[in-house]
């Protein structure tokens, strides 16, 4: 058997305006877990899409299992022995597990034969699974198991896993690592894409670090620490975040949600089940939870994009604001940043100037008698760009031309500069690079020091631990009691995120 299962040589791939992969060269040793580490936009996804036959490369050469390799489609890549588990699951929600598995196979197979094969795989790799269960009823971890089994049915030599832990609870992560270990013992190889440093050190043998489309280095994971990896990944050292010293006892309650109940009768939406919460002035209140447990539904009620029509209500300094829409709430000095910056909190096809106008409120003089005041907006736009260090050639550029991190800084800056009394923000650092991530977290803390209450909904536990004063967990539309940051443990949070409320 060959030493290296994959040799990637001088692979280049360009898209309009960017060189996503620039002469990428590294080897993956047979029978190892090889990490591909890098910030968002470093070129990891492009590279694995090339390996899996979704994209074709412009130049270079790939040797897979001793043969020259240039897959034209994912099915060709699967046939040659490469399987991939995507970050976003590609399963049909309304079908059962078994039906999804059959659909995903390239060759035809009877249901009984499939059942035998699946049972064999699930006991061998500790992947318990119910073939009859509809996908909608599964947790993210269970869905991932279905994806892994689907790949294993093809008996791949190389498994590509794209950020597999991003949607899992800490306990589910442990289980995944056990499965990965068994796969290695079987003689398979895993290419593990991540930007989480501790995972690299914990489970990977070798690590290739990418930055700006280029390989920085390929090294032995065991010889590295989180600090050294971070420095290589970012190309510079990160400053430490400065926390606020908030104590809730002498503060007034600024925002309350009382008994929020909403039934949708829709299998694709999560019913909200008696959610209550209370936030003090100057407090950062974190809402943790695995995606799809009612966060976006809750968010739409907090912003007023959806209004409640029952006895439950939302209070702002004692005033009932349940029936107010987003504009009226903004007039009261409540600011929002929804999760999706492309088409929700910002419009990619519009300029930054036009995007500033999206969150207008009575006090900012952006318009008078319905006529837009362009100079006022230009002033505000430049303020945001300057104060929040947004990298853009000019305020005239399309929002969509900015990188994710820069656009997010812009959107958050737009809301922070309104000096809100309440800021409600969903997944503030989702999918952005570490530099922008740090800047955003620090700006949230600085805002809270001025007395603003902040509600942060996030999947990223470390983020919440870093900035929040109290954290509650949302699971299937239910919110746990909040816990103070000082007496919280990752284990406890993990159990809550898995639904173990007591």
């Amino acid at each position, binding site marked *: 058997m060959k030493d290296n299962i994959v040799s990637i040589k001088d692979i280049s791939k360009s898209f309009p305006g960017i060189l996503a992969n620039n002469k990428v060269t590294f080897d993956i040793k047979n029978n190892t877990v090889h990490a591909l580490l890098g910030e968002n936009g470093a070129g990891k996804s492009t590279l694995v899409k090339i390996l899996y036959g979704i994209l074709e490369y412009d130049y270079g050469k790939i040797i897979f299992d001793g043969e020259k390799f240039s897959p034209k489609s994912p099915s060709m890549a699967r046939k040659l022995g490469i399987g991939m588990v995507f970050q976003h699951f590609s399963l049909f929600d309304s079908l059962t597990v078994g039906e999804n598995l059959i659909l995903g196979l390239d060759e035809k197979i009877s249901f009984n034969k499939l059942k035998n094969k699946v049972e064999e795989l699930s006991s061998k790799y500790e992947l318990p699974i119910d073939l009859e269960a509809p996908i909608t009823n599964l947790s993210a971890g269970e869905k991932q198991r279905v994806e892994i089994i689907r790949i294993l049915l093809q008996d791949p030599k190389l498994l590509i896993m794209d950020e597999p832990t991003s949607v899992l609870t800490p306990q589910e992560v442990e289980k995944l690592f056990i499965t990965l270990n068994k796969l290695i013992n079987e003689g398979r190889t895993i290419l593990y894409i991540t930007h989480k440093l501790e995972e690299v050190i914990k489970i990977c043998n070798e690590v290739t670090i990418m930055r700006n489309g280029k390989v920085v280095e390929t090294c032995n994971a065991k010889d590295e620490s989180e600090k050294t990896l971070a420095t290589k990944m970012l190309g510079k050292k990160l400053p430490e975040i400065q926390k606020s010293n908030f104590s809730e006892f002498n503060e007034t309650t600024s925002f309350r949600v009382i008994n929020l109940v909403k039934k949708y009768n829709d299998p694709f939406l999560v019913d909200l089940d008696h959610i209550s919460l209370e936030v003090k002035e100057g407090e950062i209140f974190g809402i943790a939870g695995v995606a799809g447990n009612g966060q976006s539904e809750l968010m739409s009620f907090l912003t007023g*994009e959806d209004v409640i029509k029952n006895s439950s209500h939302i209070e702002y300094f004692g005033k009932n604001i349940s029936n107010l829409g987003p504009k009226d709430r903004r007039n009261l000095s409540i600011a929002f940043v929804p999760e999706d910056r492309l088409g929700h909190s910002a419009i990619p096809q519009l300029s930054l100037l036009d995007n500033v106008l999206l969150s207008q409120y009575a006090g900012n003089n952006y318009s008078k008698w319905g006529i837009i005041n362009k100079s006022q907006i230009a002033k505000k736009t430049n303020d945001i760009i300057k104060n929040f260090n947004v990298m853009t050639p000019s305020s005239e550029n399309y929002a969509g031309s900015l990188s994710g991190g820069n656009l997010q800084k812009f959107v958050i800056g737009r809301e922070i500069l309104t000096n809100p009394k309440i800021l409600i923000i969903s997944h503030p650092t989702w999918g952005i690079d570490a530099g922008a991530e740090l800047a955003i977290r620090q700006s949230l803390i600085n805002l809270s020091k001025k007395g603003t209450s902040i509600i942060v909904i996030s999947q990223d536990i470390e983020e919440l631990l870093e900035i929040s004063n109290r954290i509650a967990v949302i699971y299937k539309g239910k919110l746990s009691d909040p816990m103070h940051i000082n007496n919280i443990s990752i284990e406890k949070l993990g159990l809550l995120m898995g639904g173990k409320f007591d």
Partner: protein
Amino acid sequence: MINIYPKIISRGHPSLLMTYLAPIIAIVLTLITGSIIFSFMGFTPFFALHTFFISPISTYYGVSELFLKATPLALIAIGLSFCFKNNIYNIGAEGQLTMGAIFGGGVGIFFYNVEGFWLLPLIIICGAIGGIIWAMIPAILKVRFNTNEILTSLMLVYVAALILDYLVVGPWRDPDGLSFPKTRPFNDSARMPLLFEGLRVHFGLILTIISVFIAWFIYSKTMLGYQLKVAGLSPKASRFAGFNQNKLVYITFGICGALSGIAGVGEVTGPIGLIYRDISPNYGFTAIIVAFLGRLHPVGIIFASIVIALTYLGAEDAQLFMQVPQAVGFVFQGLVLFYLLGADLLINYRISFYKRSLINEH
């Protein structure tokens, strides 16, 4: 073997150049295709295109007719651009035009023997109200019951046509009209003033130019224009901003109804001078093509309305001098729309040519 093949590649962001070039490409391709069709019919392409596009506007009278036809097209297309920018597909401008003609023309008939400077403004206002009323029906149905406005507005076109039919053969028929299905003629103070002696182009053209300016102002300077832009690009962002989508549906339908109604008034009080069955050669439908050909932009719509108006005139001349059916004008309108939709691909995509050998290298 051909070893160069085209590939469609995303541009990443929309090309401004292509946004304006696409209509020109569409027109050029239409002319080429038209020449081929004419040559199959046994005409020399140069003669045919000259008859179709040059000779109709080689006299002052012809130019006046061009603007006469462009007037309702541009006016309605401006109204439609409000709806289309808001992703509201109002296909019923023809019905709104008919209702405008009925309401406005009705006033003209009522005051057939009363003259006064106030009569024409009253007729125009009533025509706008008629168009608005007709446009509000699909708007209310959409907001309240989430019906598809394409179907409801289209069906209402035929309802309006039947009402017009009933009126001109029934209660409004001219008592001195020898039983022809037409109304009394309007008196002079109810007619659109002519702009030039002896030519048919009338005051409606001025109204159209004024609405072009107002539309341009609304689109580029006001919150309403901004809200339309946002609602068209992303309904989610529009909700985030707190814009009232239902209100926008009413406003855009209302503007379109009013302008279509005024266009209807312009026809009956302008060149026609009374109401009968065939007050509009499908201006309300053709204006859809004008709106898109003009990129939903007020200035673009002016140019587009002139181009499309020319196909109406060209078809008349073609019938006279080449003995081909007048429907050939609709063929040209259809071709323009067809090529425009095709050329619009180039706004977001570009075509690259690859040598086959290069692809196989790796």
